């Protein structure tokens, strides 16, 4: 069985889930077995998180759970109870883009865009942990998100630019 149908009818088997989503507390009824990716996309309407393989290989479904990058296609939604989840939608402040998003645009690091939400969030997790990574650390840190379009060159450049911008703006 894969995923969940988009229409959700409340029944007594549903579980209650409360967690922090992009800075706000959310309470939602969840069918048992629902995966986080499907909860975000189909129940909460946040389509920025993508699904590419459903086996935790491509990283397109990456979201941050308590700041750590996680393959939301594999994580049962109930596992985020009481925790904080960040999706791509939660990165910008109103109209203002996060420095990482701006760097990706400036460096031309986006082609088809399907891996971009996963790449951007994984970049955030990397830079939050290691504010000034060298190239090897960047390449290994982001090796869990696959991109077939860019050859990764401009993504590396974008991460370096974002790292500099973040350190300069402190």
């Amino acid at each position, binding site marked *: *069985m*894969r*995923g969940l*149908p*988009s*229409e959700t009818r409340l029944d007594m088997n549903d579980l209650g889930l409360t967690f922090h989503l992009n800075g706000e507390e959310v309470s939602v009824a969840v069918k048992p077995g629902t995966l986080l990716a499907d909860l975000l*996309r189909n129940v909460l309407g946040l*389509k*920025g*998180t*993508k*699904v*590419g*393989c*459903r*086996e935790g*290989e*491509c990283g*397109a479904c990456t979201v941050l759970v308590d700041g750590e990058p996680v393959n939301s296609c594999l994580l049962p939604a109930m596992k985020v109870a009481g925790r904080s989840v960040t999706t*791509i*939608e939660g*990165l*910008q402040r109103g109209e203002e*883009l996060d420095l990482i*998003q701006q760097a*990706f*645009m*400036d460096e*031309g690091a*986006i*082609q*088809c*865009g*399907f*891996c*971009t*939400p996963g790449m*951007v969030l994984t970049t955030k997790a990397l830079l939050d942990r290691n504010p000034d990574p060298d*190239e090897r650390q*960047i*390449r*290994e840190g982001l*090796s*869990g*998100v*696959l*991109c*077939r*379009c*860019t*050859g*990764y*060159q*401009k*993504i*590396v*450049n974008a991460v*370096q*630019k974002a790292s*500099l911008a973040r350190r300069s703006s402190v």
Partner: protein
Amino acid sequence: MNEEKKRKTKVLTKEAEGIQHLFARESASELSVVGQPLGRTDDLKKVTGKLAYGADYPQEGFLHGKILRSPFPHARIKSVKIEKALQLEGVAAVLTAKDVPGRNGFGAVIPDQPVICGDKVRFVGDGVALVAAQTEETAHQALSLIEVEYEPLPAIFDPREAIQPGAPLIHEKGNLLLHNKLRKGDVQKGFAEADVILERVYKVPFIEHGYIEPDITMAIPGDGALLVEGPMQAPFTVRRNVAAVLGIPISRVQVKSIPMGGGFGGKEDAPIDIGCRAAVLAARTGRPVRMALEREEVTLQTAKRHPHIMEIRIGAKRDGTLTALEGTIYNEQGAYASLGPLTPPAGGVNIHSLVMLPGPYEIPHCKVDAYLCYTNHPYGGAMRGFGAPQVCFAHESVIDELARELGINPIEIRRKNAFRLGSVTATGQVLDQSVGLRDTLEECARVFGWDRRYQRAGYIDKERTHRRGVGIGMGWYRTSFGTSGDGCGANVYVHEDGSVLLYTGITEMGQGSFTVLPQICAEELGVAIEDIRLVQPDTDRVPESGPTVGSRSTVLMGNAIIQAVQPIKKSILEMASTLLSIPVERLHAKNRLIYDRDHPEKAVPFRDVAAKCMASGKRLIGQGWWTPPPVSLDPETGQGNPYFVYSFSTQMAEVIVDVQTGEVNVTDYVAAFDIGKAVNPKTVEGQIEGGVAMGLGYALMEEIILKDGWIQNLNLQDFLIPTMADVPNIKPIILEVENKYGPYGAKGVGEMPNIPAAPAIVNAIAHACGGRVRSLPADPEKVYWAIQEAGGLPVPK
């Protein structure tokens, strides 16, 4: 950022002498939009997660479609029982072969693949029934309730066996789909003149496109037309197939291409497959139907890169001058024809591989036979390079082996034989313009430091576990696909406030067409790129423009846009001339102004001129249609001018080989291109870097593994594509040797980058450790055994 780390992008522009430009235009220095590394028009939506791809579209009201697939590679269908499936609650339709209303066949060229198989199945994954249900879950359950009785037939998996007499027939007309021939000069004479002759066999496997977004389509019945929308590169091909399958006129099918999460040729084929199937379900139920493939289904049923077995015999003089090349290509088509067969005179994978096998070299005598063979495997279709990556691996490997045999530096043998302006190709075509191949070779060598790196190959550690080496790959590639019906159409409408609508049939899959095409339109009109809104490709709104493939978009659609703008520009300049009292010849349009070249302060805003035109009935609409110069190829001899212009590339790689494990690390990479003109240098770099990475994957890790007709590695855990940690820094070099037929001199670039990459890397491996791998991928096991076969490691000095 460290200045040293920044790539050098050198732009070398050569104006072709005495060439009449197709459209009168400014010299490169006067361009204001074209040639600029502008940010992409759709970046913001992508980086904020707001761009809707197919799976993000609303699903309310849609039925979910699923396909029941054959578990046998070759079998007769004896019966299909659907009663139990029909009884499941939530199932809206279960269809078998008899339920297809029109032609029960689809295909990009030959419609030989059944929408629903009736009498037999030809590969594991062939469609035997279709289901539409309220939920995906219900549709899956319904599939498991359909009972099919099969009678397995002997299956054929080797293309050489498939074309032997007595082989089980996969299609009634026989397993040899096509035999193409190339005959130039007299190879016997050529070999007689050779001092050295090498014979080698090279093999390349099926691989997957690996786009991160799985295929999806939506078929929606409507008033007057059935709408099919989804991520797709070829809306017009989908449209004509859907119309035939439904048995309705083409004008009653509307197809829209929506944002794509990658294509690489795979979204040329797959949308025909699921588009026709969803359409049949939608027509039958009268309801919208959504058909989404899981990753495993994408691998199982959609088109792949054609495997090739390439036998080459090459002759050369002692100084490296090539005298003759003889080649036989066994091109594995798989179960269905897709894009393998011929669209005259030179369209299709088989003929393309044939023409490209001799490489970008002057060889007086050539003989090539290319056999396109059905097998009971998944089928080959369009994948970035379309036969060129396969044959480039062969010609670049063999010329390197020849260099080694002769004791010549690999760069020297290429200098001896590479095309120059005026060279004659293996098809007898005289390259009379835009041949920057040698420039790419010299520039790549300079930036890479070929001479220095070549000398320092060898062990890098005193423990003698790792060896370093370098390799070259050279290639060429056509712009567009060599068929007689090749053309692109565009519509441009300017409004009274100066804003512009641009309609094209070319799609965006991440390559940047939605930025580059508006750049051309903005340059021609003299407005800013933000003034242009490009309308989503819709077959209802633009002329048939062919697919977004073959590196054709910038040139063909760019020219169509330039044409479309001409009548608008005429109106604008005439009106401005009246307003400014200055003759039209002195006027120039740029940056939203029309002004006197000699006195730029005498200017009038574009929008004011547009408003005046609208108020006085002066035309502000334009339609362009551009077809390339005629192409030709004799079907018996393969002689002619199959494609109207070529791009060129030289790439150099440095690798480090772990000689104990065979593991290869690519540490440095420089890739130089002659692409005529970079309309947007930043997007061109993106194509270069992405294409090289794809070639690296082909070289080192990608392979669809088949056993008894079953794919063993259906998902990304086992079908490996490069991660960020696998790819080195890639330095792109853009050279511009103008194409007289291209907008601003441009040629295609989309596919060129991934063509010479695999041989550059495999040649580097051979240089590093002596191990010559002749079948891709050069995974650690193959490299290790290649070292042993070469006699083990060289004794260090």
